[in-house]
């Protein structure tokens, strides 16, 4: 069974189509980067996958079932979501926030997993700190650790899970961006299905073997990085004229915009 099936998905708000007739399938264990310009419908797609919004037309299925058909608790054991901006209004500690990922579970096993999750994002020893005294990037890593703990708890009982990331690297420095990529790859190695919205095309190529390009709510391209991150995509979708370079072994495209000239479509 596929991890995710999206068939002719449309999401409309009023008359405006945020997503228009999008179809793709994701097999278990795949890692996919979603790229596209602002307003292309990337976040809407992720919210539809997470079960937060229902399709206006078409279907979304996680492990063969519509997200809305699961009880939120059951769904949370099978998929975890990292949102872009999470603000914590009350003075919870880092440890408390991370443990929220474990649901009602308590005990030594959770302690160990929470500690490992914090270590994985390079925040070991931050447990007693109040979360809103940390920098934006550090807070983002705390939330990533929380999501990793939720994923780990679900995978213990329900097998490999689905990880949805909305711009996980947005406020991270270079080193922690690369750390995150390697954590995501470790997840993929043990069978986790990962879908990540990524703005940095180079990071997208580094993270995923498959890239989905969205443009104005439609699926513009779907395939290997070398096939999707191309001169043509840059021009057509991003309105940037730039030559895509290529690193050998394994073949990886890279983009180094050298002038800010707008592509004339």
């Amino acid at each position: 069974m596929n991890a995710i099936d999206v068939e002719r998905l449309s999401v409309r708000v009023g008359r405006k189509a945020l997503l228009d007739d999008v179809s793709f399938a994701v097999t278990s264990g795949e890692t996919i980067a979603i790229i596209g310009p602002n307003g292309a419908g990337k976040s809407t797609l992720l919210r539809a996958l997470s079960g937060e919004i229902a399709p206006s037309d078409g279907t979304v299925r996680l492990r063969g079932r519509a997200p809305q058909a699961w009880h939120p608790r059951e769904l949370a054991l099978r998929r975890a979501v990292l949102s872009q901006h999470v603000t914590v209004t009350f003075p919870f500690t880092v440890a408390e926030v991370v443990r929220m990922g474990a649901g009602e579970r308590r005990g030594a096993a959770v302690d160990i997993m929470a500690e490992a999750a914090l270590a994985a994002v390079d925040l070991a020893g931050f447990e007693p700190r109040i979360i809103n005294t940390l920098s934006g990037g550090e807070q983002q890593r705390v939330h990533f650790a929380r999501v990793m703990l939720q994923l780990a708890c679900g995978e213990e009982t329900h097998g490999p899970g689905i990880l949805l990331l909305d711009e996980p690297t947005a406020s991270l420095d270079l080193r922690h961006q690369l750390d995150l990529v390697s954590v995501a790859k470790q997840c993929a190695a043990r069978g986790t299905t990962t879908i990540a919205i990524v703005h940095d095309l180079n990071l997208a190529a580094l993270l995923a073997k498959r890239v989905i390009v969205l443009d104005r709510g439609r699926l513009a391209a779907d395939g290997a990085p070398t096939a999707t991150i191309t001169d043509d995509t840059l021009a057509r979708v991003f309105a940037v004229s730039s030559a895509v370079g290529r690193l050998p072994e394994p073949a990886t495209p890279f983009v180094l915009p050298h002038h800010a000239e707008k592509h004339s479509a």
Partner: protein
Amino acid sequence: MSGMSDALPAHLQAPPTLRLRALVAGPLLFPLLLLLLLLMAITATAVGAAGIPIERLPAALGLAHPIDAAMTERDRLVLLSVRLPRIAVAVIIGALLASSGAIMQGLFRNPLADPALVGVSSGGALAAAATIVIGDRLTAQTLPFAILPLAAFAGSLMTTALLQRLATHGRTTSIAVFLLAGLAIAALAGAGIGLLVFVADDRQLRDITFWMLGSLGGATWEKAALIAPFLAALFAAIPFIGRGLDVLVLGESEAFHMGVAVERLKRIAIVLIVAMTGAAVAFAGVVGFVGIVVPHLLRLVIGPGHRRLLPASALFGATLLLAADTAARTIAAPAEMPIGVLTALFGAPFFLVLLLRQRGLAGL
């Protein structure tokens, strides 16, 4: 943790004051809060218009042999029919006010939210005031006092039902609309009460003042028994809503991602808030600031986790309102000060100080 501090060099270990704080915030919290409440209850029995000194308490409670039988009999009467029911009502209402404030703050993700703020309390007071004035006109006689709590409770309920309607679009309730519509309704209820005050006669004015300013006068065992179930409902609900409210602090989407049935949680929380606030307003009128100050203070000591914050707020709110009521009936004895005035008089400046001190940290 203890194994860790053994391994740490001395200069890295938590200083004694911090360890004491960890103890107070940790295993000692509930024993300490209970002890505080007990001490306050003993003080409250001892002081007042007909005081019962502490050395006469055991005899009056039947725990020791009476020395002066007549005196003990008088003490017993005061204690059982006046003092203890009043203490019981103060304790329950204090607990209801503080914990409903804590729930509402969690629901609104805002430490400044309070049932009095969104018109739930003033809706109840308006209904009571309307019953006093209009009811009198219609029936041309003074209504039985028992009908007023009922009207106040119904008023709180209807205000919340209206707010819920206004803030619900489709199947989701917008907390922001709930809060803003609540502010408007509170202002509207205030205007309504003002109008009633304008047409009320002297006796009606006194009764309206009771609801506006709050009072625990006329407490009986029956009243205590009527509001106790609401407190029981709170404690029964804590295991079901505690974690949900914690997670909700990260946002509704995040709560859903982490497995919380968000709409159901919001419904339960709103029902609890209105039932608890309605019960408090029904028997004590509008008593402000307990719902803001108590959870705020406790968060500073024990952190914001609701599974501990809610029962701790109930205990500490009970202690604080009992202290306020004891002061209210002794400061100007034999007259009684309205308790709502007293809580506002101390609560508001205290709250301002907290706000200013926290301004930088909380990012308000």
